[in-house]
């Protein structure tokens, strides 16, 4: 009986992760189609697909967030990008997940702060890869712009994630009804 329940939970989790991966890939693709140029800076986009990473981080933990991010990057890279876009996205994505994990573990920040750090580190990671692959041209001139852009985008992603997480917690996790006004702090990883 216990075994059955554990199996069921595992399959539910696999299903959710698959849905999240598909969702983030689709969001990423749609964002490619509609270049929303908020800041007037070429190459800066909101990164809506990262909502999936943030939410997965809170619902399933960093390992699953990493898995979802990697799958998305490879999928989108194979379909619409090239080797460089995969490299850039992967570097940004994995660094941002590591940073978000640390900031979330610290317990001092809500989903807003965690996501803001994620966005900032995402851009810094890409800058790092760019300066390595492009033989150290003076790319660091671009750093302040990228930091601010990443911060703003991360905050927006955090706000969206907060809305979604509130509802998902209510729907999926806290059937007793204590999920709705949850404070997204510390370790909220649960078994589905």
């Amino acid at each position: 009986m216990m075994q059955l329940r554990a199996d069921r939970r595992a399959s539910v989790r696999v299903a959710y992760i698959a849905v999240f991966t598909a969702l983030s890939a689709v969001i990423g693709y749609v964002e490619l189609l509609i270049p929303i140029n908020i800041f007037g800076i070429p190459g800066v986009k909101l990164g809506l697909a990262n909502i999936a990473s943030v939410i997965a981080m809170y619902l399933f933990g960093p390992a699953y967030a990493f898995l979802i991010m990697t799958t998305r990057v490879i999928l989108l890279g194979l379909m619409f990008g090239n080797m460089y876009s995969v490299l850039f996205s992967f570097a940004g994505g994995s660094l941002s997940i590591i940073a978000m994990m640390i900031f979330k573990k610290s317990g001092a920040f809500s989903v807003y702060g965690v996501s803001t750090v994620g966005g900032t580190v995402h851009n810094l990671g890409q800058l790092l890869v760019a300066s390595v692959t492009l033989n150290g041209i003076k790319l660091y001139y671009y750093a302040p712009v990228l930091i601010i852009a990443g911060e703003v985008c991360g905050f927006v992603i955090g706000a969206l994630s907060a809305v979604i997480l509130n509802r998902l917690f209510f729907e999926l996790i806290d059937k007793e009804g204590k999920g709705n006004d949850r404070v997204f702090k510390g370790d909220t990883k649960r078994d589905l």
Partner: protein
Amino acid sequence: MKKPDKNDIILMAVITAAAVLIMLFLFAFRERGVYAYVYVDGKLFGEYPLNKDCEIQVTGYDGGTNILVIKDNTARIKEASCPDKLCMHQGKISINGQSLICLPNRVVVEIKGWGGDGYDAVTR
């Protein structure tokens, strides 16, 4: 809906401050060029470090001459054989990307930093 914590606001302020600080730092050290590149008719005539004072006679197109003076990390054209002397009136240059141009002699003096400027590659 849950609002950002006080900690989140502090965090954002810190990140913004860091970005502004980097920007100021880059701004403060942006100025100085390192080399003066001299082109005659589009071809490189020579490159001269700005930290060594010297005078160079540049032989321009069609035999014209310009005398380039490098002093105190700045470059200027002291004398020119051309009729209008516009290049002499362009003054001293020292900042990355600035240039002195003498059209009759087809001489261009350009200030550049360590790694040159412009883009080596663009990726999207």
